[in-house]
């Protein structure tokens, strides 16, 4: 409203305090990112229950569900596999993606809702640009989700699941990328969906549909045989590509389509999350009482 005067009235340099000497320099950005990651790690360490439940959930699938289906569902030779594989081997990549999706959703939703709404506000009053704060947040939750994935892989290996040696390393870039994608997806959902205030609702309406309508639990060619419609849905589901990216990388095989889809989705979801939390355009402004 005072466009004519404001720019000229602002001092050219910062004051003697505040951002003047610990301001938005490159090292300042690094400190901020490190701080966000350090806090996430501390919370992770302090909330052992959350860590355990994040591990138990996929283990239940692996140990009980996969054992039950072991004899029913043999998986024939299909890329990236070179031999017949056991069903328990087939589901591991899907469970890795599930771990990351759960963690991404949980981490984003817990920031916005419940008593933790305050933490989002504390983050957003930082002088750093909002996109940077949100990307820092995503990076932090991605790192934790990758650590959880490796913890699960160790347990799966101890359980007797056959994981190729080289796969332990080649799966890392895939997990980093899918960690970003699923975390950003969680962040977008957390900003848009007001009704899903409890995690059970998110499980029923978001996580399970995406999980079941994907290649996580069954090969897509089998889905196609039983339901062409579901097959199409699975092909449109970005979660399918996160699973396939992990599956192929685990066998040190390059899957350009999965990589491309995950990459594009990561960019779209991250941009959408930044937009959603933009003070000018975001939906926060239409929420009276947000933050109280």
């Amino acid at each position, binding site marked *: 409203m005072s466009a004519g005067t404001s*720019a000229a009235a602002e001092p050219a340099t910062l004051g003697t305090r505040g951002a003047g000497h610990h301001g938005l320099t490159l*090292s300042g950005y690094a400190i901020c990112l490190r701080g966000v990651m350090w*806090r996430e790690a501390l919370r992770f360490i302090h909330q052992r229950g959350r860590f355990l439940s994040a591990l138990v959930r996929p283990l239940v699938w692996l140990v009980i569900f996969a054992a039950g289906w072991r004899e029913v569902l043999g998986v024939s030779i299909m890329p990236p596999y070179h031999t017949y594989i056991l069903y328990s081997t087939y589901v591991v990549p899907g469970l890795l993606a599930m771990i990351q999706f759960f963690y991404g959703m949980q981490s984003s939703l817990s920031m916005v809702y419940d008593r933790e709404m305050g933490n989002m506000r504390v983050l957003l009053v930082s002088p750093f640009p909002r996109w940077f704060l949100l990307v820092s947040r995503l990076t932090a939750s991605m790192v934790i989700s990758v650590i959880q994935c490796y913890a699960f892989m160790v347990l799966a290996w101890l359980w007797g699941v056959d994981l190729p040696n080289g796969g332990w390393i080649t799966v890392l870039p895939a997990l980093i990328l899918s960690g970003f994608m699923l975390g950003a997806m969680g962040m977008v959902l957390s900003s848009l969906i007001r009704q899903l205030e409890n995690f059970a609702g998110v499980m029923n309406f978001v996580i399970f549909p995406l999980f079941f309508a994907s290649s996580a639990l069954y090969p897509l060619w089998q889905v196609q045989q039983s339901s062409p419609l579901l097959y199409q849905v699975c092909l449109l589901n970005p979660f399918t590509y996160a699973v396939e990216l992990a599956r192929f990388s685990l066998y040190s095989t390059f899957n350009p389509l999965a990589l491309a889809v995950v990459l594009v989705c990561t960019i779209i979801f991250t941009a959408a999350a930044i937009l959603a939390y933009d003070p000018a355009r975001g939906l926060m402004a239409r929420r009276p009482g947000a933050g109280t």
Partner: protein
Amino acid sequence: MDGPGLPGLSTSSLAGETPALSVEGVSHAYGERRALDDVSLAVPRGGFVALLGLNGAGKTTLFSLITRLFDTRRGRISVQGFDISRRPGAALAELGVVFQSRTLDLDLTVRDNLLYHAALHGMGRRLARARAEAALEDVALADRARDKARRLSGGQMRRVEIARALVHEPSVLVLDEPTVGLDVASKAAIVDQVRALSRTRGVAVLWATHLLDEIEPGDHVVVLHLGKVLAAGEMSEIIAASGAADLRAAFRALTGAAVPAPETVEEGG
């Protein structure tokens, strides 16, 4: 620098100096509902201004705009001369915030909460530790630095939040109903500490409240009611202008609403 419609605040101390916090002609609506209507106020450098209003007056909305949770669509807000919309980084670096809701990370220690905040302001580790320690001493909680925030009382948490808001040495401290839900003793401790900090550190303070007993005779008061500024000036000027005997009566005369009596508000609102 004062905007129009700002009776009483154009005192000589403000003349020729950019206020620490300036709100000019700000309006905000949630859909159809108007939460703020052409609100203007200014906090001089090192000054203490009480924003007095009942629940629903628009105080929290104003804080959301000052802290840039929402964009200011109508009007202008600046901190130390930095426009919050055009120079958000510079403005937020000069701003310390104590939100109405509890915002400490309960699983972290008191010190880790402060260090996290320092990192969000890009402050290096060594400086952050020194500042965190000093800030905790200012609120007399240095001995609780290693305790989990969860173990603190409500009043202690608030004081930690105040310490946290000062770690990056802002020029302006804004507090949204900081004493809500606290007992009388904790409340008094917080009011006294913030006033002392304002004096010793020269921090400008915007203190939002609905409690008259937190306002002292020499304070600047801005009366906000249903999104509008009804009066602004020194407490005595407001009382005199309304022809009432005290601030309580003046508030009633201005708004047509009664201020809650102090003894009924302990459970917060």
